[in-house]
Structure formats: structure tokens, C-alpha cells
């Protein structure tokens, strides 16, 4: 993290779902920051609340969800405190979102050109010709070949990679300040993944956008992110610059993830670490990670660790022993794997 004022600042966000089995807290005190021109990667196991928290920021949660506390400040304005109509109006132009499965996320019965420019047309009186021109520009921007002809096509006529580019172009239509990309490449072939990611990184750098990249892929994190937020059980357990976090993690969960990075080629999903993450309904007392943590002490089973504390400059961790972990101390021998890649 640098000293610059953050563009998007999510603080202590909590989201609950009403379910037949009772209230479930999917996000429980998440905090992160994104700065202009930087990429923040959010990583965490399935179910850790990455998507739900992004949807909360966008105001796109369904009727059963409820943001119980927290703020999401964009340039100082708390989006979550705005009336729904105003919050909606900020979407697309202040903060936009790219979804994972472009085939489902694009409307199958409308042309790509229509979907690229509908937000623009709904906000400004522009002629059909101008809208068309703009659609072509957007497709050019994401490097879809033959943009002029392709604006008339429907989503199902595109290949997976091209479709994801269209999805990205849709999100860029109003020139957003922050882009949240929720696993934008998980559905794609490995080679196509790299192309799409490179494109995203290019556009992000060119426009000095803040990019929140949600991913399972630590290789992606290392390749394109500046900062990383590691989520576990609905909250951030570590936030740091990518280099620092990879070289010397300040949270045992991050360390376990890094130690179990699988070999190249099978790196599509987050590496598995022993045990399973707790569901939103059955989080243990104390530190939610303690049943799987190699460093757990009695205090971990009794008291929850403080939310992110600064263990070193720019190194935030939510662990009772953040400082020790950061220094690489007190790692019980049996959990040190052979062939640590770092």
C-alpha cells in the first residue's frame, strides 16, 4: 500500500442472508482499499464471501441479503448510505463490475452493440449513429477483431474469450473509476485467460483505474496485482503489497496457501490446504482459522484476533501473532512442506 488516498475504501463490511435455516453471515467485517492506478487482488477459498462483498458494494444483493454494517466509500462518499436509486446511478460510472460467466451475464436476446451502449443511451441523448460508433470503439478497445461487423452479433456467436472481452467492454462503457472483476477468467482456457488478464491490466494502467481482481489463482496475483487482500470466512485476514505478502506472509492462512501452491499447469483453483473452511453458519469461537492453523494457541481458541493490525509498515494482518508470523518465527516443523516454492 502506498500513501495515496484510496479510491474505494471498504470498511468493516458485514452482509447477512436470511435463509430457511436462520440468518447467515456471509461477510463479517471485511476491510480493503483500492487506489487509483493500482490493482488489488482478493483471494480466498470458495465461500469466503468474495462475490457477496462485491455485490454489496454494487448494491446488487438480492432481497434476502442485508448489509448490517460497514461502509464503502468511493472518493469519500459512502455508497452504502445512499438511497438505492442514487446508489444505482453510481454503478457503471463510478464503480463497474465484470462477472465470471459472460455467457450467462450477457443478455442472450440482445445484440452486443445494444448491450454495450444501453447505459450510455439511458443517460445521454445520443443518436443511433453515435451509439453505434461508440460500440465499435468499445469493441476495438478490448481488441475484438472486426468490431464494425461484430456489434450486430449476439453473445452466443462469440467465443468464450471474445465474450469475456465484450463483458469487459460493457463495464468500461461509462469510464468507471473502479472496476471490480469477479473471477473474470475462471471460465476460460488457460491461454485465453492470460490474454484477457493482460488486456485488463493494460486498460487499467492506461486509464489509471482502480482494479479489484477477485481470483483463485495465486499465479495471477503474482503476475498482475499490486496489492493483495486475503479473505477467510467473510473477513480480510491479510492485506499487503504483493511482493511483501508472497515473500513473508503475515498471516498463517496466507502462508499455508503459498506453501501449497501447486505446480504450474494445475493452478486454476486455489491450492487446497488441509481441512475445510467453516460455513457461514458454523464459525468456531475465537479465530475462525484456528482448527486449521498450525500455529494455533489457547488464546486463538478463546479470543478472536483483532481485525487487521499493522504488523509492519503496509503489512496488515488479523492474527494474534502477526508480528511473529511475519518474521517467520515459530513454525512447527511438521507443517513445513518439502520443496517450498519460494
Amino acid at each position, binding site marked *: 500500500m502506498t500513501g495515496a488516498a484510496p479510491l474505494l475504501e471498504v470498511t468493516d463490511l458485514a452482509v447477512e442472508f436470511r435463509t430457511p435455516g436462520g440468518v447467515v453471515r456471509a461477510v463479517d467485517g471485511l476491510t480493503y482499499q483500492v487506489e487509483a492506478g493500482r490493482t488489488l487482488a482478493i483471494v480466498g477459498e470458495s465461500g469466503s464471501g468474495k462475490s457477496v462483498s462485491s455485490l454489496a458494494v454494487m448494491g446488487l444483493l438480492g432481497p434476502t441479503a442485508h448489509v448490517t454494517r460497514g461502509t464503502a466509500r468511493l472518493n469519500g462518499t459512502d455508497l452504502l448510505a445512499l438511497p438505492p436509486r442514487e446508489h444505482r446511478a453510481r454503478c457503471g460510472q463510478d464503480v*463497474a463490475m465484470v*462477472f465470471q*460467466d459472460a455467457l*450467462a451475464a450477457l*443478455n442472450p*436476446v440482445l445484440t452486443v452493440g445494444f448491450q454495450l451502449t*444501453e447505459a450510455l443511451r439511458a443517460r445521454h441523448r445520443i443518436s443511433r449513429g453515435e451509439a453505434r460508433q461508440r460500440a465499435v470503439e468499445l469493441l476495438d478497445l478490448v481488441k475484438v477483431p472486426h468490431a464494425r461487423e461484430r456489434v450486430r452479433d449476439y453473445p*452466443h456467436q462469440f467465443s468464450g474469450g471474445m465474450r469475456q472481452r465484450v463483458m469487459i467492454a460493457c463495464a468500461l*462503457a461509462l469510464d468507471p473509476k473502479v472496476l471490480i472483476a469477479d473471477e473474470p477468467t475462471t471460465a476460460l482456457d488457460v491461454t485465453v485467460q492470460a490474454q484477457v488478464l493482460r488486456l485488463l491490466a493494460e486498460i487499467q494502467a492506461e486509464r489509471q483505474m482502480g482494479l479489484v481482481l477477485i481470483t483463485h489463482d495465486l499465479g495471477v496475483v503474482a503476475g498482475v496485482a499490486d496489492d493483495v487482500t486475503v479473505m477467510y470466512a467473510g473477513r480480510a485476514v491479510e492485506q499487503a503489497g504483493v511482493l511483501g505478502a508472497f515473500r513473508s506472509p503475515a498471516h498463517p492462512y496466507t502462508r499455508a496457501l503459498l506453501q501449497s501452491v501447486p505446480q504450474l499447469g494445475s493452478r486454476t483453483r486455489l491450492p487446497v490446504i488441509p481441512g475445510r473452511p467453516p460455513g457461514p453458519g458454523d464459525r468456531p469461537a475465537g479465530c475462525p482459522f484456528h482448527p486449521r492453523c498450525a500455529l494455533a494457541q489457547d488464546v486463538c481458541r478463546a479470543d478472536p484476533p483483532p481485525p487487521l493490525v499493522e504488523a509492519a509498515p503496509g503489512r496488515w494482518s488479523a492474527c494474534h501473532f502477526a508480528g511473529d508470523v511475519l518474521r517467520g518465527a515459530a513454525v512447527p516443523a511438521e507443517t513445513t512442506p518439502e520443496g517450498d516454492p519460494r
Partner: protein
Amino acid sequence: MGRYILRRVLQAVGTLFLVMVVLHLLTTFAIQLNGNPALAFFGEHEPSASQLAAVEKRYGLDDPCYDQVGNPCAGPFVDRLVAYAQGDFGTNLRGRAVTEIVAQSAPHTLRLFVVVTFTWLTIGMVLGSVAARWRGRPADHGIRFTTVLVDALPVFVLLLLYKFVVTVPVHQWARSEFGSESWPALWFRPSFDADHPWATVLIPGILLGVSGSAAFVRLVRASQLESYSGEHVRTARSKGLPERYVVLHHVVRNSSIPVVTAVGLVFTEALAGAVVTEGLMNINGMGGVLWGAVKGSDVSLVLGVVTLLAVVTVVVMIVVDVLYAALDPRIRYE
């Protein structure tokens, strides 16, 4: 798109041919088992053999195959197809051209149909959309409860109630209040009046439409609810589009695809309802003609009318399919 339509039309022609084969076989076996329908021509009195032979010849019933049970009578069938292809649908037992009879009665049925379809679509789309938009709210519960009520009331009960309980007092009151030629008096006439075909068919048509709309309301609601939770709707919202726009362009637009399919299916149901309504409200339409023809063993008339109805149904199916393709590009480019 052109190829798609062509394929549909060819399929439709095939279907039509099958319908005609089945119809022919059914009537043939009916004649073979029940005896000579030409007798019906003479009503009560006994014809001489030569009279009977003349009549048989006139209606194409002289082929000996009609006396052999189990013979499919392919010869007369081909003759009839050739005649139909030339626009000759034969005559009824009283010598009137089938085409003329149909031309006279079809507009009445068509009018009923227009009113029914219009009512049905309007109610279905409006109530279905409202129920989906405010799911789980009082409006939704109210609408769903009403559809159950409507379903519990069959068309003929609804029409009987209307005809014998509502129309008489209302019609009389309207006549004395506004005059017998006024719109209100015509609307509530207990039976059809060929001089005022639209006014007198309006309310029975609406009732028929209402009774058919219950299932349709539920269908529209269900398909829109599915759209509401669709990922593409979430994307549309993420673009900052106002909710009204999202509903119109991404929910209603997408859910119109299953709805159009249902229109085709319910068409046949409406056809059955129309026959009942015509009978009850004394509307001299296709339903009445068909009913009379079957009762009077009027073979050519039955065959002609049923064939025409099959043609209409098949045409509607084609229109639905084409509309379907127009609404859904994935079908169009398949």
C-alpha cells in the same frame, strides 16, 4: 431466417397431411360401421334404390370400398385431395358449397377469437408482470388467489351464470334507460345479434378470455421471476440502468419467449372454448356449423370444416414459431 421459415412451412404441410389422413380413416371407418350417410339426405322417408344411388354418387360415397369394413378407401381420399387442391371443398347435404358456409360463419368465430386473445394477453401480461415485480407482496398474493378462483370456475359455468343471471336484468335495465339500440343494451344482450356482431360478442369473448387467462398469468409470472434472478439482469443493473428500464428490456423482453410459445398451445384450448361459447350464446360460428354437421352425418361438411380448422391451427403454429425465432436469436441461427 428464410430457411427456418421454409423448414417450418414444410413441417406444417406434413402435419396437415397427417391430420387429413387420420380424419379420412376415421370417417371411412365410421361410414363402414354405421351404414350409409347418404340416407341422412332423405331424412324420415325411405328413398328408392336409384334415388339413393344418385345421392351417393353426388357425394362421392358410391365407391364400393365404403361397404368393406377395414378398407382404407385410398381412392376417394386421393380424389378429395385433388378437389381440395383445386379449391373445391364440395357441398353439404343441402347442396350449399362448404366454402360458402364457412365464409359465412368463420367471421363470427374469428371475432370471438380476437376478443378472447386480446383479453387473455392483456390480463396475462399485466397481472403476471405485476405479480412478478412485487413478488411476495399483497399484490402478488391477491393475483394468485384470483387466478385460482378463476380456474375453479369452468367457462361454461361462467357463461351460464352470465347468460341467465346477469344479462337479463342488466339488458332490460339498459334497454329502458338508453334504448334497445344503445351500446350498453347490445353489450348485455343474452344472445348474439348478427346485425351488431362486435357489440354482442364482446362480453362473452371477454369472459372466455378471463377464464383462459389464469394459467397464462401464472406462466408470465413464473417466467418473469426466472428472468429477475437471471445473471444478465444483474449485469444490466450493474450498468446503473434504472429499474424500470431493466424490467422492460431485460425481464419482460426475455420472458416473452416462453410466453409466445404458450400462445400457440392455448390457441387450441381457446378453439374448444369458442365452440362452447358459440353454442351458449347462439353465435352462428364454425363451432355451430361443425356441431350441426356431425349431428346430421354431413360428411363433406365435417371434413371440410375440420380440414380448414386444421389449416388455421397449423398457420398459427407457424406464426408462433416465426415469432419465437424473431424473439430469440439463438433459435434463428441454430
